[in-house]
């Protein structure tokens, strides 16, 4: 295969290597081939995309929004995980805090994940504001700025949020819905201490971002091969499990509108 895709991913966890080694191997067998490089943070990855060092960036929603803003919209989303489509944030509360509606949050402490996490900080604040909860006026914010540069991928700040609520340091907190679902499934949530109060409207999370100048004859076979990965295939399943999806989907982009607005509103740039 001539000129296969060079993809960038951020090394938020050691499992990133087996994931992309596995997909690289799969792509070799499927035809289009690919290679990948790892970055320690999304800002460097976006720089590499814009400078042409990589063809495709496996981006968080914030990285995608930043790339679009820096290119005045000349980026293209190629594909995403099924789990990236209806992503939402979850507001959890201390079960005994007497918080039964969003209005009850006023005057309370809200724990947030990393300031560059779309799902555990930026979008929860954005959506609360649209429910008439003004973060500046109505809430005491407790921020856990952990692993900044990785846009909340590591889950470290979400763990800190959940712990803060469970231990009573904070009365409420914001996490991404996959983190909450995983905690429920692992029975790591003590319902007497923490419970779900509210889920935000849905939005999109990660996607594969390219510059819109890229030749489609290079990206199309690669995306097609990606969409053919099958969760019911025992060879693909471990890779998809590690990456947190059941199947890859063609990219949708309408769900990024809220983050564009949030970034503007919160002056994150």
């Amino acid at each position: 295969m001539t000129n296969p895709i060079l993809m960038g991913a951020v090394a938020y966890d050691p499992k990133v290597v087996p994931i992309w080694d596995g997909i690289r191997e799969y792509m070799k067998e499927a035809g289009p081939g690919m290679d990948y490089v790892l970055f320690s943070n999304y800002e460097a990855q976006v720089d590499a995309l814009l400078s042409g060092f990589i063809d495709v960036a496996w981006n968080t929603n914030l990285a995608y929004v930043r790339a679009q803003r820096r290119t005045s919209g000349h980026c293209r989303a190629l594909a995403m995980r099924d789990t990236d489509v209806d992503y939402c944030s979850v507001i959890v509360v201390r079960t005994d805090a007497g918080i039964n509606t969003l209005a009850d949050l006023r005057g309370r402490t809200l724990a947030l994940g990393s300031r560059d996490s779309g799902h555990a900080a930026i979008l929860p604040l954005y959506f609360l504001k649209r429910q008439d909860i003004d973060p500046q006026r109505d809430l005491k914010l407790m921020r856990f700025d952990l692993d900044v540069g990785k846009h909340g991928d590591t889950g470290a700040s979400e763990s800190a949020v959940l712990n803060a609520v469970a231990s009573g340091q904070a009365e409420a907190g914001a996490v991404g819905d996959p983190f909450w679902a995983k905690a429920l499934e692992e029975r790591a949530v003590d319902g007497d201490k923490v419970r779900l109060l509210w889920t935000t409207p849905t939005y999109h999370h990660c996607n594969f971002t390219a510059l819109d100048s890229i030749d489609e004859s290079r990206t199309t076979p690669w995306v097609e091969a990606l969409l053919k990965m099958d969760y019911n295939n025992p060879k693909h399943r471990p890779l998809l499990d590690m990456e947190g999806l059941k199947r890859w989907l063609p990219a949708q982009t309408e769900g990024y509108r809220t983050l564009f607005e949030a970034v503007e509103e919160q002056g994150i740039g």
Partner: protein
Amino acid sequence: MTRPITTKIKAQYYGEDLGASEGLLVAVARLLDPLAEGEALEVATENLSVPDDLRVWCRRAGHRFLNATRENGKSIILIERGFVRRTLADPPEWGVRMPRRGETVDMRDWQVGRHATIDEEAPIAGSLAPRGASIEEGAPTIEFSIRKRSDIWANAISELYEQATSSQWVGARDIPWQELAPLDEEVERAVCQIMTFLAENEYAALYVPARFIGQIHPHFTEAALFLSTVMVDEARHIEVFTKRALANGGGLGVASAATQLSLASLLEPKDFSTASFLLSVLGEGTFLDLLAFLEEHAPERATREICRRARQDETRHVRFGIAHAKYTIEADLSAARRFGSAVEARAEFLKSVSGVGALIEESLIIYSGGGMSPSSLRAGTKRVAQLYETMHANRVKRLAAAGFNSDQADHMSRLHTPNFM
């Protein structure tokens, strides 16, 4: 919201106020498993967080959260099963029931359900799982070199296994050690040398199956399990023979070069059937007569009990050896020739070994005669000569039972190592 009419509700669960992470997800996941893609589970709950918790969980689990409606204090949630198979395996069995044998459940009756199918050749891809379990796709495969039934099987193997497990005994408890008292020194010396010799042989009996057991495809689980009991038996034999040598003022004797050569040659065969034939049919078979002899002439009760209990265990090992040889020969006549040439080759290899060795033979004479007085030695000498004849006669019988004619049996028995095992 109203229910989509097209959705088929195939399962229902009322979760009361149970929280998602308090166990509700267990029921939800298990009830969704048997549904087809597109069929739905209806969950009723009084827990206020559960509707959102389930919606969020459905995304993670690959199911579709259709809707949640409130009806008199309860939420009714509809979940449509997604395309994902949680486990890439055939569904588990259901409705299998072993017959009871009186009060108990016996291995002889466990050929039921998928477990009942015993193939002549196990699949190349092996798993550490019971025969008939539904193996998930993507599980690693393990290669086992013993995967032909005739290479390991014996009729009545389940019965032998049940016998073995119900006849286990404890070396420290079941031997009347408290009765041990000083013996005539020559007799004690003989006992110690014989015990040393017995223990040496038991090491061979332990290490031969040990070399093969890890190669047995778990499809032939009865064989692997039975040989495990053999190994435990042999461990106990080593234990009690060694204890007896050390317990009464004597100590361990000599491990002679000839005995060691004879035993080392038992580790040579690369296939289980040949190794088992040499060890169990010929060696352990001969040992049955030796142990009966030692039991009969034992100078005290502890030694007698040791020999009696070891002989009972060995009887089982020999039964297996004969049954396996028979099974193998019936499956493939050339196996008989293979065993024959193994016996010839071993005899050739052991040409330098002309007898059981002076130390052992003398010890047997003193032991069975009861000391070193002239009358004792006269009696012992006769008894040992008689023992050799008994050993030969019984070996011929065992070989006949395994499927050899009388000429072959006589020839093979005469070629058998003078070292007994």
